[in-house]
């Protein structure tokens, strides 16, 4: 049981009283203000920014913060979804509904070469699929539109190499990340300068944790893909992961039939690479309760993080977001 949880289940424990007036601004409000500041700095100092929109909960929060940062004006940049063609169908439906509802300038990009070669996670494995359909596709899309800054929803608490990433992170003209050439980032003074051809990755959610994301979604009533909520879904077990059979492209073993299990997703990606967790958490309070009690990290459901030690660092060096 986490330390935070013990307060939750014992309402008699007095809540932490603000110890000084400076404590008045809650942690979430401070995180929100910091993210808004980062959005505004980036838009003010770059030529052609774009927001990477992955449709997941972090992207939902990112979009919500971006809208706040520029209200009552419109979002001063487009959204880019790198579509591997293997996303859950509910993700695509959600994406299109949100874009329509909010009047977003949404760009969808798929690596045409990978598409022509039929690259996919089942036929080519997670490493090749992620490299071709995500990493290379992203590089192509950024080059095609000449974006010089791309917002992403990555958080430092996700993975050890992310913890060392700057909020404003420089990429070479080849989109490579050099962990040894990171700029100092003191106070709230962000250096958004870069040489011709270089670009920036900008992470306004750097200082958020998974719990902060959920609490903020609840507080702000932010729409998220229904896959995050528990429901009976058809799944098969693959290498210890519960994989949802989202369409007929997932080959089944002879005699294998998907089982209906009460599951939900803690992260969303390509469906054959995204493990579900058994859960009956069907509301935000229940998800927050489960997050507090969780014994495994959210990335545990991601197959690509297990492609060897330091896998994320290597992918990031190669241009993975």
């Amino acid at each position, binding site marked *: 049981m986490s330390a935070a949880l*013990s307060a939750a289940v014992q309402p008699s424990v007095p809540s932490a009283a603000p110890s000084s007036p400076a*404590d008045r*601004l809650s942690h979430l409000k401070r995180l929100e203000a910091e993210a808004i*500041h980062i959005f505004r700095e980036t838009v003010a100092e770059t030529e052609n920014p774009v927001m990477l929109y992955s449709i997941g909960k972090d992207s939902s929060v990112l979009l919500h913060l971006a809208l706040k940062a520029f209200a*009552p004006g419109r979002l001063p940049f487009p959204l880019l979804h790198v579509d591997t063609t293997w996303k859950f169908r509910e993700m695509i439906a959600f994406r299109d509904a949100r874009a329509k509802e909010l009047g977003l300038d949404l760009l969808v990009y798929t690596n045409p070469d990978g598409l022509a070669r039929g690259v996919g996670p089942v036929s080519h494995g997670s490493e090749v699929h992620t490299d071709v359909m995500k990493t290379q596709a992203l590089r192509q899309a950024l080059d095609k539109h000449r974006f010089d800054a791309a917002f992403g929803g990555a958080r430092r608490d996700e993975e050890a190499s992310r913890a060392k990433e700057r909020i404003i992170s420089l990429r070479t003209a080849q989109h490579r990340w050099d962990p040894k050439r990171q700029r100092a980032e*003191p106070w709230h003074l962000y250096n958004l*300068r870069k040489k011709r051809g270089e670009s920036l990755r900008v992470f306004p959610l750097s200082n958020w944790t998974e719990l902060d994301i959920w609490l903020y979604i609840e507080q702000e009533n932010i729409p998220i893909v229904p896959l995050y909520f528990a429901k009976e879904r058809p799944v098969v077990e693959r290498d210890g992961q519960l994989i949802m059979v989202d369409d007929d492209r997932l080959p089944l073993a002879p005699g294998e039939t998907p089982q209906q299990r009460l599951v939900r997703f803690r992260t969303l990606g390509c469906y054959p690479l995204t493990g579900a967790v058994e859960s009956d958490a069907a509301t935000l309070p229940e998800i927050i309760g489960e997050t507090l*009690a969780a014994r495994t990290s959210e990335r545990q459901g991601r197959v690509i993080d297990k492609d060897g030690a330091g896998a994320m660092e290597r992918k990031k060096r190669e241009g993975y977001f």
Partner: protein
Amino acid sequence: MTLHQAPTAFADRASGYAAFLVAHRNKAVLRFIACGSVDDGKSTLIGRLLHDTKQIFDDQISALQRDSRKHGTQGQEMDLALLVDGLQAEREQGITIDVAYRFFSTDKRSFIVADTPGHEQYTRNMATGASTADVAVILVDARQGLTRQTRRHALLVSNLGIRRVVLAVNKMDLTGWAQGTFDGIVAGFRDFAADLNFSEIKAIPLSAKNGDNVVEPGIAAPWYAGGPLLAYLETVPVRAEALNAPFRMAVQWVNRPDSEFRGYSGRIASGRVRPGDSVTVQPSGRTSTVARIYTADGDLPEAGEDESVTLVLADQIDASRGQVIVATDAPMRVAETLDARLFWAAETDLAPGASLFAKIGTATVTATVERIVSRIDPETGKPGPAERLSANDIADVRLRLDRPVAVDAYAENRETGSLILIDRETTDTAALGLVLAPSVEASPTTQPARGGLLRGLKRLFGR
């Protein structure tokens, strides 16, 4: 991997959740920096804090056990340092290379920890970590005692405006929890730190490896009754010093979606603002009144430090990015020449005459290094002459800007008294800078040959 049914978090979901939200909404965040020399156990200490406050998940523990066998320095035991040393080179070499940020929370507070390396580019990394920290935890190896590095780190966090430090005397288990050893280190540190303007020095004997006095009290040292590190971090005041600073907000972005609305967006650096307040735009000097504090969630009756808002002014005055909206009765200094203490971060040297970009608030100007006033000895804080600056040097310089900017002295305001210098060619961040109070000497060439340390500190701290 084990699949398991997640336990129900709230026995009575509705009331438990409500209580949790109340507690969480009142929770403040404390940012602290952990610094120490190589092998003092910084990463282990942070790993211990994360582990003992239950922030580490089962799959991370199994990964840690696997990594400990491969890269660990703790024999058969889990090497908690590997939780924070995330880069491959760090794991392979068993050292921390780059500043890392870690997060944990208890039922009292949320914490953001900057874990900074004690050796490689320590000036720049540590200054970065310290720049936003409320508290510094300075680690000392009980067997080594105070080292040159300890003095450097204490001086550096003092320079960056940190007023509360924890002297964490680590590896006490390896001294048999000798009180005399601890007392000697603490006395030495207090002596050295007498001039460093700390408002509080909290000394704690601990063992990060075993966990004594980190989260749980250590039972091995009955002579120490000061409580564990976490208890201190949960109760130390957050930024008590910054509360009385006047209103300042640098304009980031002029929000003008249509002819009806014109707002100035920014993050409030300090102070509070209400509709009706008289404000001045600097450096232009035009004055107006706050008409609205616009946010996407509706207008606010009042806003304060750290909030991102959009101000609508009563008059159609021109304010643009780079200017600062301030309380009319407490304006900032407008300067074209700045004295600044630099933490030089670039690999190339700095010589007088060099031209760089300076980012001050939201203003970016060209800055020419008119002269290097003095280099600061990183161990004693004493100024000395210098022709050039090399990587990791600390120095006071005079900068000439190509146009005036509004600044405060760093001692009075960390947000509006700080700057970065950017190399025009590489575009890398070349230096971190603290704006010094304006010099009172008529001729700058007369400073600061004598009485240098004290006067230097007085200028830095504004006292």
